[in-house]
Protein backbone atom coordinates (compact mmCIF):
# COMPACT_ATOMS: atom_id res chain seq x y z
CA UNK A 1 0.00 0.00 0.00
CA UNK A 2 1.13 3.53 -0.76
CA UNK A 3 0.97 6.43 1.68
CA UNK A 4 -2.18 8.50 1.24
CA UNK A 5 -2.72 11.70 -0.76
CA UNK A 6 -3.12 14.83 1.37
CA UNK A 7 -6.91 14.99 1.11
CA UNK A 8 -7.43 11.40 2.22
CA UNK A 9 -5.00 11.70 5.14
CA UNK A 10 -6.59 15.03 6.11
CA UNK A 11 -10.13 13.60 6.08
CA UNK A 12 -8.99 10.55 8.09
CA UNK A 13 -7.04 12.55 10.72
CA UNK A 14 -9.71 15.25 10.99
CA UNK A 15 -12.53 12.70 11.05
CA UNK A 16 -10.83 10.84 13.87
CA UNK A 17 -11.20 13.88 16.17
CA UNK A 18 -15.04 13.73 16.50
CA UNK A 19 -14.98 9.91 16.48
CA UNK A 20 -12.58 9.85 19.43
CA UNK A 21 -14.75 12.46 21.20
CA UNK A 22 -17.83 10.32 20.59
CA UNK A 23 -16.04 7.26 21.95
CA UNK A 24 -14.41 8.80 25.01
CA UNK A 25 -16.00 12.21 25.54
CA UNK A 26 -12.53 13.76 25.28
CA UNK A 27 -10.56 16.08 23.01
CA UNK A 28 -7.49 14.23 21.77
CA UNK A 29 -4.00 15.55 22.30
CA UNK A 30 -0.52 14.12 22.52
CA UNK A 31 1.90 16.50 24.24
CA UNK A 32 0.08 16.21 27.59
CA UNK A 33 0.77 12.46 27.44
CA UNK A 34 4.46 13.29 27.91
CA UNK A 35 3.51 15.37 30.95
CA UNK A 36 1.69 12.34 32.34
CA UNK A 37 4.81 10.23 31.76
CA UNK A 38 6.76 12.83 33.76
CA UNK A 39 4.39 12.52 36.72
CA UNK A 40 4.34 8.73 36.89
CA UNK A 41 5.58 8.81 40.47
CA UNK A 42 2.37 10.48 41.54
CA UNK A 43 -1.02 8.78 41.91
CA UNK A 44 -2.94 8.57 38.63
CA UNK A 45 -5.50 11.36 38.22
CA UNK A 46 -8.06 11.97 35.49
CA UNK A 47 -5.36 12.52 32.90
CA UNK A 48 -3.75 9.09 32.87
CA UNK A 49 -5.60 8.22 29.65
CA UNK A 50 -3.34 10.70 27.82
CA UNK A 51 -0.36 8.50 28.58
CA UNK A 52 -2.16 5.39 27.27
CA UNK A 53 -3.09 7.27 24.11
CA UNK A 54 0.53 8.36 23.59
CA UNK A 55 1.76 4.80 24.14
CA UNK A 56 -0.54 3.60 21.37
CA UNK A 57 1.08 5.89 18.78
CA UNK A 58 4.19 3.74 18.14
CA UNK A 59 1.93 0.73 17.47
CA UNK A 60 0.13 2.75 14.81
CA UNK A 61 3.43 3.85 13.32
CA UNK A 62 4.47 0.20 13.14
CA UNK A 63 1.21 -0.72 11.40
CA UNK A 64 1.66 2.15 8.94
CA UNK A 65 5.24 1.18 8.15
CA UNK A 66 4.27 -2.48 7.65
CA UNK A 67 1.36 -1.45 5.39
CA UNK A 68 3.56 0.72 3.19
CA UNK A 69 6.66 -1.46 3.37
CA UNK A 70 8.55 1.38 5.00
CA UNK A 71 9.62 -0.49 8.14
CA UNK A 72 13.39 -0.34 8.38
CA UNK A 73 15.27 -0.34 11.68
CA UNK A 74 18.52 0.05 9.77
CA UNK A 75 17.56 3.61 8.79
CA UNK A 76 19.72 5.31 11.40
CA UNK A 77 19.56 8.76 9.90
CA UNK A 78 16.68 11.22 9.75
CA UNK A 79 16.02 13.08 6.51
CA UNK A 80 16.94 16.16 8.48
CA UNK A 81 20.44 14.75 8.98
CA UNK A 82 20.82 13.96 5.30
CA UNK A 83 19.54 17.30 4.07
CA UNK A 84 21.62 19.36 6.47
CA UNK A 85 24.70 17.10 6.64
CA UNK A 86 24.47 16.46 10.38
CA UNK A 87 25.59 12.92 11.16
CA UNK A 88 26.51 10.67 14.04
CA UNK A 89 26.33 12.10 17.54
CA UNK A 90 25.57 15.58 16.18
CA UNK A 91 22.34 14.28 14.66
CA UNK A 92 21.14 12.80 17.94
CA UNK A 93 22.09 16.01 19.72
CA UNK A 94 20.13 18.08 17.19
CA UNK A 95 17.08 15.83 17.54
CA UNK A 96 17.30 15.90 21.36
CA UNK A 97 17.66 19.70 21.49
CA UNK A 98 14.81 20.08 19.00
CA UNK A 99 12.74 17.67 21.07
CA UNK A 100 13.47 19.59 24.27
CA UNK A 101 12.20 22.80 22.64
CA UNK A 102 9.13 20.93 21.40
CA UNK A 103 8.37 19.63 24.92
CA UNK A 104 9.08 22.94 26.65
CA UNK A 105 7.13 24.98 24.11
CA UNK A 106 4.15 22.62 24.12
CA UNK A 107 3.78 22.98 27.89
CA UNK A 108 4.11 26.77 27.64
CA UNK A 109 1.55 26.99 24.84
CA UNK A 110 -0.73 24.36 26.36
CA UNK A 111 -0.72 21.92 23.46
CA UNK A 112 0.91 20.75 20.25
CA UNK A 113 0.11 20.20 16.59
CA UNK A 114 -2.67 17.74 17.51
CA UNK A 115 -4.40 19.46 20.44
CA UNK A 116 -3.91 23.04 19.24
CA UNK A 117 -3.47 23.02 15.45
CA UNK A 118 -6.09 20.43 14.57
CA UNK A 119 -8.56 20.08 17.46
CA UNK A 120 -8.19 23.62 18.83
CA UNK A 121 -8.49 25.47 15.52
CA UNK A 122 -11.43 23.22 14.57
CA UNK A 123 -13.06 24.41 17.83
CA UNK A 124 -12.38 28.01 16.80
CA UNK A 125 -10.12 28.67 19.81
CA UNK A 126 -8.11 31.91 19.74
CA UNK A 127 -5.34 30.28 21.80
CA UNK A 128 -4.96 27.53 19.20
CA UNK A 129 -4.80 29.94 16.26
CA UNK A 130 -2.13 32.02 18.05
CA UNK A 131 -0.17 28.90 19.11
CA UNK A 132 -0.23 27.56 15.56
CA UNK A 133 0.99 30.89 14.17
CA UNK A 134 3.85 30.52 16.68
CA UNK A 135 4.50 26.92 15.56
CA UNK A 136 4.80 28.09 11.97
CA UNK A 137 7.01 31.10 12.78
CA UNK A 138 9.36 28.84 14.76
CA UNK A 139 9.31 26.05 12.18
CA UNK A 140 10.18 28.33 9.27
CA UNK A 141 12.88 30.10 11.31
CA UNK A 142 14.55 26.85 12.42
CA UNK A 143 14.45 25.24 8.98
CA UNK A 144 15.86 28.28 7.20
CA UNK A 145 18.52 28.61 9.90
CA UNK A 146 19.55 25.01 9.21
CA UNK A 147 19.57 25.74 5.48
CA UNK A 148 21.81 28.76 6.05
CA UNK A 149 24.15 26.77 8.31
CA UNK A 150 24.33 23.96 5.76
CA UNK A 151 25.37 26.50 3.13
CA UNK A 152 22.17 26.92 1.16
CA UNK A 153 19.40 24.81 -0.36
CA UNK A 154 20.73 21.38 -1.36
Amino acid sequence: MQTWPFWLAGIAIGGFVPLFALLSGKALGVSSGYAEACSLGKPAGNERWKLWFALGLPLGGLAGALATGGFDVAASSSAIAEQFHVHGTAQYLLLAVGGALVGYGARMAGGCTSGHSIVGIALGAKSSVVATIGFMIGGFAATWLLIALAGGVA
Partner: protein
Amino acid sequence: MKPLVFVVSGAVFGFLLSMGRATDAAAIVGMFRLSDLHLFGVIGVAIATAAVGIALLRRANVRAADGSTIKLEPKPYHSAVLVGGIVFGLGWGLSAACPGTALAQLGEGKLYALATIAGILGGTWARTRLAQRAGAVSAAKS
Protein backbone atom coordinates in the same frame (compact mmCIF):
# COMPACT_ATOMS: atom_id res chain seq x y z
CA MET B 1 -12.91 3.70 30.27
CA LYS B 2 -10.19 1.07 30.08
CA PRO B 3 -6.56 1.90 29.18
CA LEU B 4 -6.76 -0.50 26.23
CA VAL B 5 -9.38 1.69 24.54
CA PHE B 6 -6.95 4.62 24.64
CA VAL B 7 -3.96 2.55 23.52
CA VAL B 8 -5.97 1.35 20.51
CA SER B 9 -7.19 4.92 19.81
CA GLY B 10 -3.61 6.16 19.96
CA ALA B 11 -2.57 3.37 17.61
CA VAL B 12 -5.24 4.39 15.09
CA PHE B 13 -4.09 8.02 15.30
CA GLY B 14 -0.45 6.96 14.87
CA PHE B 15 -1.40 4.86 11.84
CA LEU B 16 -3.15 7.84 10.26
CA LEU B 17 -0.15 10.12 10.91
CA SER B 18 2.08 7.51 9.30
CA MET B 19 -0.18 7.07 6.24
CA GLY B 20 -0.36 10.85 5.84
CA ARG B 21 3.47 11.12 5.87
CA ALA B 22 3.32 13.40 8.93
CA THR B 23 6.07 11.13 10.31
CA ASP B 24 8.28 11.73 7.28
CA ALA B 25 11.01 14.18 8.29
CA ALA B 26 11.55 15.04 4.62
CA ALA B 27 7.90 16.07 4.31
CA ILE B 28 8.22 18.34 7.36
CA VAL B 29 11.41 19.96 6.07
CA GLY B 30 9.70 20.28 2.67
CA MET B 31 6.76 22.05 4.27
CA PHE B 32 8.95 24.70 5.91
CA ARG B 33 11.08 24.97 2.78
CA LEU B 34 7.88 25.37 0.74
CA SER B 35 9.22 22.68 -1.61
CA ASP B 36 6.59 20.07 -0.62
CA LEU B 37 3.19 21.43 0.41
CA HIS B 38 1.71 17.98 1.16
CA LEU B 39 1.53 18.47 4.95
CA PHE B 40 -0.07 21.91 4.67
CA GLY B 41 -2.78 20.14 2.69
CA VAL B 42 -3.11 17.38 5.30
CA ILE B 43 -3.37 19.87 8.19
CA GLY B 44 -5.81 22.13 6.33
CA VAL B 45 -8.15 19.30 5.30
CA ALA B 46 -7.88 17.78 8.81
CA ILE B 47 -8.94 21.06 10.48
CA ALA B 48 -11.89 21.49 8.10
CA THR B 49 -13.00 17.87 8.53
CA ALA B 50 -12.67 18.02 12.33
CA ALA B 51 -14.66 21.29 12.41
CA VAL B 52 -17.50 19.75 10.38
CA GLY B 53 -17.44 16.59 12.53
CA ILE B 54 -17.53 18.60 15.77
CA ALA B 55 -20.42 20.71 14.46
CA LEU B 56 -22.34 17.52 13.62
CA LEU B 57 -21.60 16.11 17.10
CA ARG B 58 -22.92 19.29 18.70
CA ARG B 59 -26.03 19.32 16.55
CA ALA B 60 -26.74 15.66 17.37
CA ASN B 61 -26.38 16.59 21.05
CA VAL B 62 -25.27 13.07 21.95
CA ARG B 63 -23.36 11.68 24.90
CA ALA B 64 -20.11 9.74 24.61
CA ALA B 65 -20.15 5.96 24.30
CA ASP B 66 -19.45 5.60 28.03
CA GLY B 67 -22.39 7.88 28.88
CA SER B 68 -20.23 10.88 29.76
CA THR B 69 -20.80 14.40 28.44
CA ILE B 70 -18.56 15.16 25.46
CA LYS B 71 -16.05 17.79 26.57
CA LEU B 72 -14.62 19.77 23.69
CA GLU B 73 -13.56 23.07 25.22
CA PRO B 74 -11.24 25.66 23.64
CA LYS B 75 -7.88 25.79 25.43
CA PRO B 76 -7.40 28.95 27.53
CA TYR B 77 -5.54 31.88 25.98
CA HIS B 78 -2.71 33.47 27.98
CA SER B 79 0.42 35.51 27.34
CA ALA B 80 2.74 32.46 27.05
CA VAL B 81 0.82 30.90 24.15
CA LEU B 82 2.61 32.78 21.36
CA VAL B 83 6.12 32.50 22.84
CA GLY B 84 5.52 28.85 23.73
CA GLY B 85 4.28 28.29 20.21
CA ILE B 86 7.43 29.81 18.73
CA VAL B 87 9.66 27.71 21.02
CA PHE B 88 7.71 24.62 19.97
CA GLY B 89 8.04 25.60 16.32
CA LEU B 90 11.82 26.02 16.58
CA GLY B 91 11.99 22.48 17.96
CA TRP B 92 9.58 21.24 15.28
CA GLY B 93 11.91 22.60 12.61
CA LEU B 94 15.13 21.36 14.24
CA SER B 95 13.87 17.83 14.91
CA ALA B 96 11.39 17.58 12.02
CA ALA B 97 9.02 15.96 14.49
CA CYS B 98 6.28 16.87 16.93
CA PRO B 99 5.10 14.97 20.02
CA GLY B 100 2.80 12.59 18.13
CA THR B 101 4.92 12.02 15.06
CA ALA B 102 8.08 11.31 17.10
CA LEU B 103 6.27 8.39 18.80
CA ALA B 104 4.86 7.13 15.50
CA GLN B 105 8.35 7.41 13.93
CA LEU B 106 9.70 5.13 16.64
CA GLY B 107 7.05 2.55 15.74
CA GLU B 108 8.07 2.84 12.09
CA GLY B 109 11.46 1.53 13.17
CA LYS B 110 13.20 4.91 13.02
CA LEU B 111 15.30 4.45 16.14
CA TYR B 112 16.71 7.97 15.98
CA ALA B 113 13.27 9.10 17.19
CA LEU B 114 14.39 7.92 20.65
CA ALA B 115 16.64 11.01 20.80
CA THR B 116 13.68 13.25 19.89
CA ILE B 117 11.39 11.55 22.42
CA ALA B 118 14.01 11.82 25.18
CA GLY B 119 14.33 15.53 24.36
CA ILE B 120 10.56 16.08 24.45
CA LEU B 121 10.33 14.33 27.83
CA GLY B 122 13.18 16.48 29.14
CA GLY B 123 11.63 19.72 27.89
CA THR B 124 8.21 18.77 29.24
CA TRP B 125 9.72 17.93 32.62
CA ALA B 126 11.74 21.17 32.76
CA ARG B 127 8.76 23.38 31.95
CA THR B 128 6.44 21.56 34.35
CA ARG B 129 9.04 21.81 37.11
CA LEU B 130 9.60 25.52 36.47
CA ALA B 131 5.86 26.24 36.43
CA GLN B 132 5.41 24.33 39.70
CA ARG B 133 8.20 26.33 41.35
CA ALA B 134 6.77 29.62 40.10
CA GLY B 135 3.38 28.47 41.39
CA ALA B 136 4.87 27.59 44.78
CA VAL B 137 6.59 30.99 44.98
CA SER B 138 3.44 32.94 44.10
CA ALA B 139 1.42 30.80 46.53
CA ALA B 140 3.93 31.54 49.31
CA LYS B 141 3.74 35.27 48.55
CA SER B 142 -0.03 35.49 48.62
